């Protein structure tokens, strides 16, 4: 657990991030990574990658899962609760307000031009994170990690493999590899 942070800080951080998460769950992960790992040093790169992998593998929205996991990692159960409230409040407030005039909202020229514009920015934010994370994995120079990276990338991009299948398959391969490595290690000792 982290000593130099409080629940209030965690709430403000998640609220602020969630209020600007246009374009889906991976944006909030990019922002969390930038904010929690690079700027505030609350988490290490490796941990953030683990939490992202777990958020992706659990049921429910990735953004919500990621904030529960980081909240718990940083400040235990209260942290998880505070982080999830910080994350759901902005869309709850916004959408309940918009629901009164959603047709006008949807058809407003400025709002839709703004939103169309953000998607190029969202793509930049996500791909910038991908480059950093991929670099981290590639510099570890583990043949296994690089193989999984390419295999899952090709199968999801070119063959449209289901997210569940990719997660299950890569988790299984990781387990099998660890199992055999573990057995070999024990075999050498005995």
């Amino acid at each position, binding site marked *: 657990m982290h000593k130099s942070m409080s629940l209030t800080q965690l709430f403000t951080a998640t609220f602020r991030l969630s209020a600007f998460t246009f*374009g889906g769950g991976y944006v909030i992960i990019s922002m969390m990574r930038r904010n929690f790992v690079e700027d505030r040093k609350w988490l290490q790169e490796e941990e953030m990658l683990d939490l992202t992998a777990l958020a992706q593998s659990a049921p429910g*929205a*990735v953004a919500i899962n990621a904030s529960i996991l980081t909240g718990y990692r940083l400040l235990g159960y209260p942290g998880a609760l505070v982080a999830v409230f910080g994350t759901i409040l902005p869309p709850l407030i916004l959408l309940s307000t918009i629901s009164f005039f959603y047709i006008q909202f949807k058809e407003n020229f400025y709002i839709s031009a703004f939103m169309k*514009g953000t998607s190029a920015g969202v793509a930049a934010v996500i791909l*910038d994170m991908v480059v950093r994370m991929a670099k981290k994995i590639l510099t570890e120079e583990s043949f296994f990690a690089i193989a999984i990276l390419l295999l899952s990338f090709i199968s*999801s991009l070119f063959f449209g493999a289901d997210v569940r299948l990719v997660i299950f398959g890569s988790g299984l391969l*990781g387990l099998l590899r660890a199992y055999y490595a573990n057995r070999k290690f024990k075999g050498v000792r005995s």
Partner: protein
Amino acid sequence: MLYLQLFWSFAQIGLFSFGGGYAALPIIQKQVVSVHHWLTLQEFMDILAISQMTPGPVAINTATFVGMRVLGLPGAITATLGCVVPSFMVVLIIAYFYNKYKNIWVMQGLLAGLRPATVSLIATSGLGILIAALYHVEIEAFAIKNIASLDIPAAATFIFGMFLLGKRRSDPIYIIIGAGFLGIVFALF
């Protein structure tokens, strides 16, 4: 009991949607349109459009919207909690095991496989968003012959954004808001 129905419907959405975002849409549509008739198909499409224009996960946005329509603000809160509570519990169990056993070979092995796969899945999703931003087509429908129909302002925004993020370490929030305002400027002129 409408509150319970709302909660339970969205709890199912929260529990059975994996991979987030658009993978959840068929489940949401089934619960909200086909089973309970809380929204018409047109309203559901509207809320999807709005969901893309506002921050927050699609499931949470739909929950808030449907809740408001059915029972007002208490309904919105009930539906949103329904969406979050079940996965909150599942994720907390995962978080507990992760923190307790992260140095055990089973967990290490699992994560060694999941980490690179996660990066690939995010890359695929990011490329999908990029193709949609630059060519206004779904990534599945994209082909080499579309290459010429590039949206140049969007491409410029993307390259400028990558530059600011990579070289200047700009805050992602400013990149996204800046891209939005550029979008208004390009739409006006």
